[in-house]
């Protein structure tokens, strides 16, 4: 089982790959939209990337609740 920090680090790489956000900026308290300037289409790509990377399923209706990096990490921890 990966640690919270390991999940955050892998997610940071994904966010960097999709949206060009520096990996060090992808911290648990950051909002994808407000802090990291990730737009809605990039967010879809990031969440699909999470499904592939962490073997979780993120239904479309769940994705709107994942506002911060911490929300996404917590969801992955709970469902992987």
């Amino acid at each position, binding site marked *: 089982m990966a640690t919270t920090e390991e999940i955050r680090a892998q997610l940071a790489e994904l966010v960097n790959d*999709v*949206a*060009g956000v520096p990996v060090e900026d992808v911290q648990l308290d950051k909002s994808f939209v407000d802090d990291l300037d990730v737009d809605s*289409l990039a967010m879809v*790509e990031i969440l*699909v990337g999470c*499904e*592939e990377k962490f073997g979780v399923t993120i239904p479309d209706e769940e994705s709107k609740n994942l506002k911060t990096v911490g929300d996404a990490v917590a969801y992955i921890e709970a469902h992987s």
Partner: protein
Amino acid sequence: MTEIVITGLGATTPLGGDLASTWQAMLAGTSGVSAITEEWAAELPVRIAAYVKVDPSEVIDRVKARRLDRSTQLALIAAREAWADAGFTWEGDEDEVDPQRLSVSIASGIGGLHSLLNNWDAHRDKGYRRVSPFTIPMLMANAPAANVGLAVHAKAGVHTPVSACASSNEAISLALDQLRLGRSDIAVVGGTEATIHPLPIAAFGQMQALSRRNDEPERASRPWDRGRDGFVMGEGAAVLILETLEHARARGARIYGTIAGAGITADSHDIVQPDPTGEGQSGAMLKALADAGLAASDIRHVNAHGTSTPQGDLTEAGSIRTGLGDATDDCVVTSTKSMTGHLLGGAGALETIATVLALHERTVPPTINLEDPEPDLGIDIATAARPLPAGDLAGINNSFGFGGHNVAVAVTNANSNR
């Protein structure tokens, strides 16, 4: 009528990553055709193409590139060069050019083919969740024009004419009309294509439209040569900045020449074969002359469509003679596709630029590989770089597309301050 002048040029082609290198390679008679080395080509009857000399991944930021089809990436590279060449800042302030007076007309013959097919592959192999949310804005044929419009802040209209291999000459014609009608003062104009992919290579191959001279890629595109056996698929983009003479003079712009006129006809003959009488093709040239207020004897150079197909080259040679009459004897014809391959929706813009530069530099680039010409063509084809005389010069660029679209663009070196 308002004169429309050319104040910026840019291109990324199989001969070079910018226009200067492309033009030098053209004058030197260099082929941009090579073997397709990717695995998928192994089983195809056609295994040659003309890739861009500088891959867009070397130029476009990686994160931006993820959201842009290859055809759009190429258009952005060419547009950025043309925009800077005209003296403007790429992605600069809106103060530089009034957005309400700036339009875009950039064509593509096929559109975002790689994006469409790659996402279908992902859907079929891995399920719908793997389809990129950017697929639609990447595959739409207007994506190159729209992305260029965003970069330069164009608000007077952004357009994408589609007429197969005549598309970007039609884009030039559309922009010419819009500028003359006063709908904008300045326009970013051109065409792009990126279709070196197994499906179009197989599909054009099935039409028997592509050369199969796989063992000699550099000799495969050979317009008017008796050994020609089809065109070579090329990729790339070319962009011109057009302005009203008044707008260009007000800002002291450097002027290459004018887009003097354009002529459009349709064959209404066959969905892919040109009308063998050439009536539609010569008609387009005659309309371009009339629109430009030029006589046939003013035309000293024709950059032909000249794709290296058995029927197309013969038809066009006849059409040029029909259109220009005895003045054909004083006119130097070339096909730069002998070097670049066929850029489909990018061809008209690239070859209009080649025509403009030929007049501006007074040198016609050669048609390479013309070793055994068809007899009795009745046109004077430059097989080596050929000088043009001093004084006022006019030329025509022809582009013809599947569907029977014929578009001729007339250019001059007038107002050129060189």
